[in-house]
């Protein structure tokens, strides 16, 4: 009688297990992205994985375009793009060997590097910083000196350093002359009036406030409703998205270095394509995986991301030494880096080789005549 109960329990578990297993298999078949098998079979493809810093969105459009349009395939690579998330540090994933390349902001790569990770920046894709400090226009906060005595929202975790350096540049102490408020990763606190200014990426959170209905007018908030401090203008901007690689492997493994050149070349070709084929890249991103913001939001982001990349005076992906020095200045003066990193922190040879190849293929690697378009935002970014 009693042992039968155990049998019954085991039977129930078995049934559940079978049901789950069969569901699981169905899902696997459906969710696995169909690889471009024809080319893969005819040519020997190298498998490469790329760790993103965040979830799929236009910030990474160039890589998705290179994957979906076959640019990676053209150079013999089969690239798997891995989503980032809240607790994923791309530099750590890269160093552990769980990814071949990673996308990371420069400070977020250099800090773990100083702690001993052997990684290096091989292509500086973004030539500008996308971080803003946004406030309502009637608050009159138009420059870092206006932040004095106000409630300053920021995300912390190293995202606040451009603002800290900006405050320092006008003689203010971030710890005593302003009140720092930890900000959620949306703009609700600013809209609520809980903070006087909020940290925002020009391609994400700034768009969010412009996708929000202004209760006073019943229409969307307009750019003139806000004041924006752009750290690029203040001169405390830090470099953001770059392609990172395993420094040891580059030194010891000639095949990996060769792969890195091809990977950077195809990725940059993706970015050039997104500059010249705006809407196609937006569609690719939206199709890649349902992004956090809708198609309208992704269109805004694509435009702003293009503006962070183009023009690229030294050629796309090639490090701008002056901006690098400024990044290091801010990082060391704010104490996030103990000392300026050694020369191995970035290298330009790989990007330069890739750029030369792209130029030889007749592509415009500078984008000097790039102009921002006007993207109409809609409520909720749909």
């Amino acid at each position, binding site marked *: *009688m*009693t*042992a039968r*109960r*155990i049998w*019954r*329990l085991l039977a*129930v*578990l078995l049934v*559940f*297990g079978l049901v*789950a297993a069969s*569901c*699981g298999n169905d*899902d*696997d078949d459906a*969710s696995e992205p169909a690889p471009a098998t024809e080319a893969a079979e005819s040519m020997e493809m190298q498998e490469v994985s790329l760790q993103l810093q965040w*979830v799929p969105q236009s910030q990474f459009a160039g890589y998705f375009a290179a994957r979906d349009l076959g640019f990676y395939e053209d150079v013999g690579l089969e690239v798997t793009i*891995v*989503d*980032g*998330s*809240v*607790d*994923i*540090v791309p530099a*750590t*994933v890269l160093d*552990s*060997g*769980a*990814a071949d390349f990673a996308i990371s902001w420069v400070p977020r790569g250099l800090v773990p590097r100083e702690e001993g990770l052997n990684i290096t920046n091989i292509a500086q894709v973004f030539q500008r910083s996308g971080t803003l400090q946004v406030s309502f226009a009637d608050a009159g906060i138009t420059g870092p000196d206006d932040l004095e005595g106000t409630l300053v929202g920021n995300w912390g975790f190293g995202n606040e350093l451009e603002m800290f350096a900006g405050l320092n540049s006008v003689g203010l102490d971030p710890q005593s002359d302003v009140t720092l408020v930890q900000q*959620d*990763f*949306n*703009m*609700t606190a600013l*809209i*609520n009036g809980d903070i006087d200014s909020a940290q925002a990426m020009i391609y994400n959170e700034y768009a*969010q*406030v412009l*996708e*929000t209905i202004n*209760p006073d007018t019943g229409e969307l908030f307009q750019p003139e409703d806000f004041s924006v401090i752009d750290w690029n203008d203040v001169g405390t901007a830090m470099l953001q998205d770059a392609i990172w690689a395993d420094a040891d492997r580059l030194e010891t493994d000639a095949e990996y270095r060769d792969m890195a050149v091809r990977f950077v070349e195809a990725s940059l070709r993706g970015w050039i394509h997104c500059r010249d084929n705006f809407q196609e890249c937006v569609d690719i991103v*939206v199709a890649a*995986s*349902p992004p*956090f*913001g*809708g*198609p*309208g939001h992704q269109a805004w982001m694509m435009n702003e991301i293009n503006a962070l990349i183009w023009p690229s005076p030294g050629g796309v992906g090639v490090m701008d030494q002056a901006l690098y020095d400024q990044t290091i200045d801010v990082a060391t003066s704010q104490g996030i880096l103990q000392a300026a990193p050694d020369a191995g922190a970035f290298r330009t040879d790989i990007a330069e080789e890739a750029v030369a190849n792209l130029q030889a293929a007749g592509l415009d690697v500078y984008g000097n005549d790039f102009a921002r378009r006007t993207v109409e935002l809609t*409520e*909720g*970014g*749909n």
Partner: protein
Amino acid sequence: MPNTDAMAEAHDPLVFEHRLKQQAALEQRRDAVMRIVRQTVTFTVFLALLVGLYTGYKAFGQSIDDAQHDWAVIGSVLPRTDDLNMPPVSEIFGQFGETPGGQDQIYARILFGEALFTLREAFAGFLVGLVIGMVIALALAQWRRLEQGLLPYVVASQTVPLIAIAPIIVIWGRKNFDVFPWEWQDWMSVSVIATYLTFFPVAVNGLRGLQSPRPENQELMASYAATWWQALWRLRLPASLPYLFAALKIAATASIVGAIVGEISAGVEGGLGRRILREAFNYTTGPDRLFASVLGAAVLGIFVFLVVTGVERLVVGRHGGGAAT
């Protein structure tokens, strides 16, 4: 003719007993139906109360215009009542029937698909956690020395925050788990996180359950010259069932929490965790969707709890069953 038959039947003690049994079965079924009806009514009444409380507080806050006042409680300790901070209940529930931009399915259908994805991760983790937990419980019950040595570590394992272990497990999974015959995918790492939350209550309660038979029962087993296996199978395992099911109810809901948190930290696309992260990110422009997605997660939690309760009824009977009966 049929009359006399019926008369004869009525006086036949066997038939009479059969009738009684039928009657009892019927009553039992009626009781069961009544119980479900009662529970449903109670649940609905409470739901209505909660909705009323939420809506009433919101209406009150709006009527005194809480944004313009410096109230000590309303709009400060308690949330502000405007639509951004407290979207109306009608909008939250209405969200389920709406089709988000760029999608071709209504929100409820999308959530359902994502809940299934999360359920699969959680269930895989739950099963493995159940096995690991029982193995630990058996080992600890068998060797007292082991209990003294290992139990502190089992307890300590639960004080490690999930967000600390999640990235480790994900990286580990991608890099090192290629020993399995199947291709390791990130959702399986999320299952490992669910396992991590699941094995603990099973191990602790399972241990108590295995130790629960009274000494005289164990002596009886010994007097029958029962082997260790026989004693386990006929006495200790059945005795542990009530304890085990208490643990499984905790473990089932914990596995859902583990799966959702795991998805958020590890960056796994397709389940409720990614959905909640997405809606939190878009809160400024769509607060009602975050509320709706969290409700979806709550419904999933209630569902697995009910499933475990149902299995318990099936396995040990309605009254939970006394130990070792």
